[in-house]
């Protein structure tokens, strides 16, 4: 942007001024610093900026200029001796200062000589307030002197404290004595300020010796751990974390399963209620629900308004007015609800598609087993001959159901295995306990838990044929068995480790206690 003033003029077709280039150039040079009057701001911004470049072009090349250090004369420094106000003697040291500084100013570093506030007491005060069995006045004096000498650096005070003929004092002893004396002095002396500041000051002298000693003990024991102990501690910590995580995963799995199988109807829609159902009075409650369920029978289930199994595209959800319904019927129009909830945005827009493109597929992880199951039924899931909406939804429902079944089977197997393990462990424990209890489990039920609970346990006991149950008795039954098995399993775990999920294990733990007693 090195446009000269002449260029600007020719561009703007302003007649050139009569002066020589030097003359025209001198002006902006002078003006470069600040805008003079009589020139418009725009013009100044145009030519004002170009002035230096012009000057540079017109000047003769020179050697590198000497740096301009300003016209100030050299600062004079002189060696001057000074007196330090922080010293009590008359030592004069010397240093270099600017000659311009006032020799009478006090030494700037003397202001850092700050003495801490020292608490002192008179003889009367000592005899009146500060008597202590463990401390003589001389030793207290010595303590205060030492503390003052080392500016209440406690570790140093403790290191240097050597009262001739005194008993050996711990750091806490000294702190306790010092702070208690200070507290008493503050409390008993006339106080000029307000009460709040006084209590605050006393608060700052608060010292709990017992607590400090215990804390130190803890610090020491923490340091005295052997590497093995540290390793063990870490391993335990990791184990605990892992168990917690497992617990959470189990709970999630269980909730999912419950929701899948029983739906909201079961009254166990979420975790909170779920847990509540496992606490003390609920087994009977739960059983009742189960009974009503099984009484209605399997065929009533799909009729549930929010049955989660029927996950096919909802047929017609939109409330339609009569007119449009009639119109649709006349023209064989079936309205489907769009899947996306707020489908106004472009991204959510679904273009037209063939339904055969949208044939549902099972989850990749479970696909082989589901396909196997479907093949057993004589259905080829890969090719839907007539992908009408009904067919599609049916296939989807089928796949969903199969998935649920497979998952349930998996969980069942797991639970069965755990039951077996737990039983084995129980057997070991019972044999250890001299076989006194005999049929401990049965006893526990008969003594405490309502009779209905028997059914639960029976259902659980029949865990081996859970699959049949799933097929015959409806899902509620199997849910119950799964749940109670979970409860049982948790109770076993709660014996071996301190479980996190205490609320769920509360009743069963009571049961185990009873077992032990029996």
């Amino acid at each position, binding site marked *: 942007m090195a446009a000269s003033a002449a260029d600007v003029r020719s561009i703007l077709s302003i007649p050139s001024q009569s002066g020589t280039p030097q003359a025209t150039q001198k002006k902006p040079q002078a003006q470069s610093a600040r805008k003079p009057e009589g020139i418009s701001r725009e013009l100044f911004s145009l030519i004002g900026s170009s002035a230096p470049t012009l000057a540079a072009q017109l000047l003769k090349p020179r050697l590198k200029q000497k740096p301009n250090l300003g016209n100030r004369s050299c600062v004079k420094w002189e060696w001057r001796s000074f007196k*330090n106000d922080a010293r009590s003697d008359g030592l004069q040291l010397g240093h270099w200062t600017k000659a311009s500084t006032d020799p009478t100013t006090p030494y700037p570093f003397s202001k850092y000589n700050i003495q801490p506030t020292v608490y002192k007491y008179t*003889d009367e005060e000592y005899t009146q307030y500060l008597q202590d069995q463990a401390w003589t006045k001389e030793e207290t004096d010595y303590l205060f002197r030492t503390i003052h000498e080392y500016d209440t*650096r406690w570790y140093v005070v403790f290191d*240097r404290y050597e009262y001739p003929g005194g008993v050996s004092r711990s750091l806490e002893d000294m702190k306790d004595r010092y702070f208690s004396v200070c507290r008493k002095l503050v409390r008993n002396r006339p106080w000029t300020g307000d009460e709040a500041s006084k209590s605050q000051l006393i608060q700052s002298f608060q010292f709990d010796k017992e607590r400090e000693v215990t804390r130190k003990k803890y*610090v020491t024991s923490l340091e005295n751990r052997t590497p093995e102990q540290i390793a063990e501690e870490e391993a335990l910590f990791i184990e605990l974390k892992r168990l917690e995580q497992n617990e959470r995963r189990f709970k999630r799995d269980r909730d999912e399963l419950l929701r899948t199988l029983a739906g909201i109807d079961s009254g166990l829609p979420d975790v909170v209620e779920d847990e509540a159902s496992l606490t003390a009075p609920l087994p009977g409650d739960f059983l009742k629900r189960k009974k009503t369920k099984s009484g209605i029978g399997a065929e009533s289930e799909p009729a549930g308004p929010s049955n989660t199994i029927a996950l096919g595209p909802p047929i017609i959800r939109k409330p339609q007015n009569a007119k449009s319904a009639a119109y649709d019927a006349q023209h064989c129009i079936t309205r489907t609800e769009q899947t996306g909830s707020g489908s106004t945005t472009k991204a959510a827009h679904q273009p037209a598609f063939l339904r055969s493109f949208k044939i549902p597929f099972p989850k990749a992880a479970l696909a082989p087993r589901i396909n196997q199951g479907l093949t057993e039924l004589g259905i080829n899931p890969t090719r839907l001959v007539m992908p009408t909406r009904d067919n599609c939804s049916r296939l989807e429902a089928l796949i969903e159901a199969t998935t649920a079944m497979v998952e349930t089977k998996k969980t069942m197997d797991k639970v069965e295995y755990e039951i077996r393990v737990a039983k084995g462990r129980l057997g070991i424990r019972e044999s250890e306990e001299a076989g006194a209890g005999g049929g401990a489990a049965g006893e526990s039920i008969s003594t405490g838990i309502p009779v209905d609970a028997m059914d639960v346990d029976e259902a659980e006991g029949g865990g081996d044929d859970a699959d049949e149950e799933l097929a015959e008795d409806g899902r509620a039954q199997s849910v119950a068995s799964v749940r109670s098995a979970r409860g049982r399993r948790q109770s076993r775990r709660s014996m071996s480790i301190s479980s996190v999920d205490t609320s769920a294990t509360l009743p069963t733990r009571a049961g185990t206690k009873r077992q032990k007693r029996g």
Partner: protein
Amino acid sequence: MVNYGGDEVSAIVVDIGSSTLRAGYAGDDSPKAIIPTYYGYTQNVPEGDAMAEDGAPPSRSKPFIGQNGVATWRPGMEVANPVRESLISDWDPVRPLIEHALVDVMRCDPTEHPVLVTEPAWNTPANRERMAELMFEELQVPAFYIANTGVLNAFSAGKGSALVIDVGASIASVTPVVDGFVLRKGLVSSALPKLVHAHARHTLTSPTNSRAGIQLYPHQLIASRSPVDPGAPPQFTLREDRVAGTTESWKSWYEAREVDEWIQSVAGALEQGWNDQAAAMRPAKQYEFPTGFSTYFGPERFTVGEQFFYHSPQLVASNPNLPKNIPALISESLRACDPELRQVLMGNVVLTGGGSLFSGFSDRLINELSRSFPHVKIHAPGNPTERRYGAWLGGSILASLGTFHQLWISKEEWQVRYSVGCDLFHVLNFHPHRSTEHPSSARGVNSITVEFILIPSCQCIACNNHLLLLGTSERVNQVCCLTSQYFTQMLFSEYCK
């Protein structure tokens, strides 16, 4: 100037170690004068029989000090070192040593400069007083201060609290420093460097399967030598004229120096602890001695460094007074400290001293410490000057601080408090109510008559004890006899009114 807290009063820092004496201006980053603490002297030939009948030791010549002192061969020259185990044990050569450093090397006038001197943490009060006396009475310094090497090493690392591991020429010490104070209970030291030196010497001089014992002659005693293959016996001729005049002390000095040079260039410590395979894996190092003998040193060179960190049970059993090794020193020091401090100290470990420049030492130390203390943090300057002269550097920082200048002990204070006061307090601490005249032969004080009177009416503000009136013919002071604090000063003439 005020901005960074520095105010230089052209103070001089003097750091006297076992092997060298360092002196320089405060505020510099390295000492100006570094002279060996070893000095040479010759016994003067007794003139006549005046000496012999006194039984007094024959007088010594002027000591040979500095670069051309002990390292130059002189007929009949003995070698001595005033510093033993970091403490000054022989005061006669100390003044010439300091004067040589200040006047001959630094070319400055000690009467114009305040002097800061270092002392090891285990220095005795008597030694400290003697140093003050030397400074004030003999060198006539205007002000003096004596600071602890442990604290100064911590300062040179920029830390107020630190665990200072100082490996010097003769003593290895571990010093816990908290807020600029040494914790005396946690202070430990041992003559470990001596043990390492002895081990290295033994390694060199004792014959092995592959070589005969190595002769440790210095180049000063060798007239000529011819090159030989590595491992072959050396071919050299000694300067027989010199060998005859060589004293035993000079011989041990130069042998020690040859061993030290070998340690510095060849010996090392294994970073990961002793391991025969690892030691064998390391490349052998060639070293040529002044005799022309040269050979390769393999795993044996690492056994030397091992002495710093591990002593075999056989060695411990055979030698009850074995100096403690570094890990033992550290754990002993930490055990004596408050459990709460241990974390702080281990987070601020300062490694210093010329001995810590031993090859592989700092890596090995880091490994040893991080094994037992997970949060250890070691400050080990990579710059050899900072490592060797850490205490001097800390003194240089301290003496150039503006806030430090109130701490100097002035000559005036010395005259009252140290030469007169200390003796008095010594007496008075045992007889607090004596009111007799002190023997006027107070040590180190010339032409000052000392009187003291107990003043029953005045009491010390710190300890309520009775004040003493302590005075010379010039000045009168009120002094507390317990805390040695002194209060009012007045001229004697004023007092007489």
